[in-house]
């Protein structure tokens, strides 16, 4: 069953490609059509994904907070988020009079588009990837830092003091936490010897990096989790929004669909970050194998690779959600202290350790 499913992804894609080549006879046009199909497929994937994440967030929060969570619309409240989306769609999208209207309307688009772009090099299953770019990791870390422009834009153009403060916080935060994210990603790149996502996954065929890489990789995994939580502006690092301080931070003035786009971007970012963590540290779609337990490994192989990938991703998403519902928020100077005094030095030393480990071949 696993074989069938995995083959079907790649053969499906090749099938479409061959059919298109036969039908269109123009390589350029085939490429364009394929890109459109990939984009549409991504969109179709994203909407239910965000519904699931929204539902999951509410239920996780509710269970942690000893309450039931949404339970009215649809079975077990599953359709609540659909109802909310419809509500947001029909709400008036206000644009403040004194705002910079062009930037104000552009900002949510930029935030959403950048978070979608990061989806491209992620391997969702075996041989199932939108774009296996050779500099995958670099691509991810560079594209994801564009999002800060959207946030700064939103904060500035709203012409609201809270928004401006939120945007400034967000700028300082993302710029500094980029470093730690990058350094923790580099440690895996050093071990795997490639920036390509598929290569990194394949390098974990005989064991995930988090197991193979000893303590240094564990440290960089933790640093990645913390820093990426900060980078996607989620609690306890949600200073850009900081409800109790800045009402809603950079998206104070947004309403209706534009607000929904920020929400969408937040969930996509959450997914992307978790997917990257799963790919780099937990072996992506690689099943869980234990040394010489051939029967066990055989059974594990039967679980489809997409399930492995999504399972790992959602486990990390759960951890990040639990962060949000457990911890108080940091203050802005403490946020920077944490980065510059703790995460950055530790990850720098960590990179050296990983390099030594990789050169000496101490990892498994």
């Amino acid at each position, binding site marked *: 069953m696993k074989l069938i499913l995995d083959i079907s992804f790649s053969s499906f894609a090749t099938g479409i490609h061959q059919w298109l080549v036969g039908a269109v006879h123009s390589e350029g046009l085939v490429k364009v059509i394929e890109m459109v199909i990939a984009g549409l497929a991504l969109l179709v994937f994203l909407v239910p994904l965000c519904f699931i994440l929204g539902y999951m967030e509410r239920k996780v929060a509710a269970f942690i907070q000893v*309450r039931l969570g949404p339970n009215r619309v649809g079975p077990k409240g599953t359709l609540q988020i659909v109802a909310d989306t419809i509500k947001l769609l029909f709400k008036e999208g206000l644009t403040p009079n004194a705002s910079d209207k062009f930037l104000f309307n552009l900002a949510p688009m930029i935030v959403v588009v950048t978070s979608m772009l990061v989806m491209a090099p992620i391997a969702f299953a075996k041989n199932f990837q939108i774009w296996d770019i050779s500099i995958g990791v670099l691509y991810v870390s560079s594209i994801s830092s564009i999002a800060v422009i959207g946030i700064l834009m939103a904060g500035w153009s709203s012409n609201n003091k809270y928004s401006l403060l939120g945007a400034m916080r967000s700028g300082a935060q993302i710029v500094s936490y980029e470093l730690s994210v990058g350094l923790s990603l580099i440690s895996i790149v050093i071990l795997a010897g490639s920036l390509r996502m598929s290569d990194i996954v394949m390098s974990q065929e005989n064991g995930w990096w988090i197991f193979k890489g000893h303590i240094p990789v564990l440290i960089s995994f933790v640093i990645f989790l913390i820093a990426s939580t900060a980078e996607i502006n989620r609690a306890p690092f949600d200073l850009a929004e*900081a409800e109790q301080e800045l009402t809603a931070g950079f998206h104070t003035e947004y309403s209706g669909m534009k607000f929904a786009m920020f929400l969408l971007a937040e969930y996509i970012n959450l997914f992307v970050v978790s997917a990257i963590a799963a790919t780099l540290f937990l072996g992506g779609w690689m099943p869980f194998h234990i040394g010489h337990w051939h029967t066990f490994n055989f059974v594990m192989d039967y679980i489809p690779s997409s399930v492995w990938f999504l399972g790992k991703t959602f486990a990390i998403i759960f951890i990040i959600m639990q962060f949000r519902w457990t911890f108080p928020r940091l203050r*802005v100077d403490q946020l920077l202290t944490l980065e510059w005094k703790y995460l950055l030095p530790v990850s720098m030393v960590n990179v050296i350790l990983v390099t030594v480990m990789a050169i000496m071949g101490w990892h498994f």
Partner: protein
Amino acid sequence: MSLLGEDIVTEDGEFVINIGPQHPSTHGVLHLKVWLDGETIKRIQPHLGYIHRSIEKMSESLSYRNFIYATSRMDYLSAHINNQACALCVEKGLQVEVPERAKAIRILMAELTRLSSHQLWWGCTGLDLGAVTPFFYAFRERESIMAIMEETCGARLTQNYCVPGGVMYDIHPNFRNRVKDTLKQIRSKFNEYEEILTGNVIFEQRTKGVGYISAEDAISFGCTGPTARGSGVSCDVRKLFPYDGYEKLQFKEILEQGGDCYARYMVRMAEMKQSVFIIEQLIDNIPEGEFQAKTKMVLKLPKGEFYQRVETARGELGVYIVSDGAASPYRIKYRSPNFSNLSALERMATGTKIGDLVAIMSTIDLVIPDVDR
């Protein structure tokens, strides 16, 4: 004071934001005008009165029985203690001896109120600092106290249970068991509070050394309650000027020397345990007897002035009645703890960050209707 049409930064290079009247952290309709330098606070100006109902003026036209209910709407989180203060003041004027049973019931209810108020405060402090979950844990325990209130007083928040001469009616037969169950539950949850908030490193960082006020300043600003006790000022009215038989009870006045948000937090956390301790002492020893002294139908205080202070969950509440011998007070003044505590906010928050302002406001534990009255 025009809020519209101002540039984001004024001509003097001042960045002014208005926190409130509707804002998630102000716990009501408090309006703070804050002058900022980046994220650092240069100056704060509170604008009050959004919920001013002139309870003092209203009370001037109400009889001595009827004005008590209005004080529930001042500090609604310690409504019972407010009512108790008024009842005590009227009793002082009438020179009525309150039966021992009524006194015990009043203290029990007052301590339960304090406990529930501190629990709500604890949840809100977590909420203000960005941790949403403690709020729900706090409300879980608070709910069982509310059930006690509802069963005996008939209302959850604005009980109006104190009347001049005692309490309105006797405790419910189920009262003892319910209180004991609740105390057991609350005692078992204290370590959860430690785990999720008190011990949390982020929480410590957010509160330690933040919002410092010295003991001299605290006295000068008239701070009372946990706000002053966090600075080491001994001001517990229950100890200094005991009323309703507090002098017979064993409990400690909690003092912390830190003067910062963390110290105020720790004072309240310890006070919760002290309240539990007081209730445990009394719950099996409620004296038998009348729950209300015999009073006349129409109460008339003799000509004169009467001042009664009590310790609410937020500090010292003073009730100052000036009587001209009529059936309603000539002048009544509520010295509300929050009003004085709020005046110290500027001293505490100047030079801190916006995030700290939220922490300071939550550890002062402001209840805005009590500020505005």
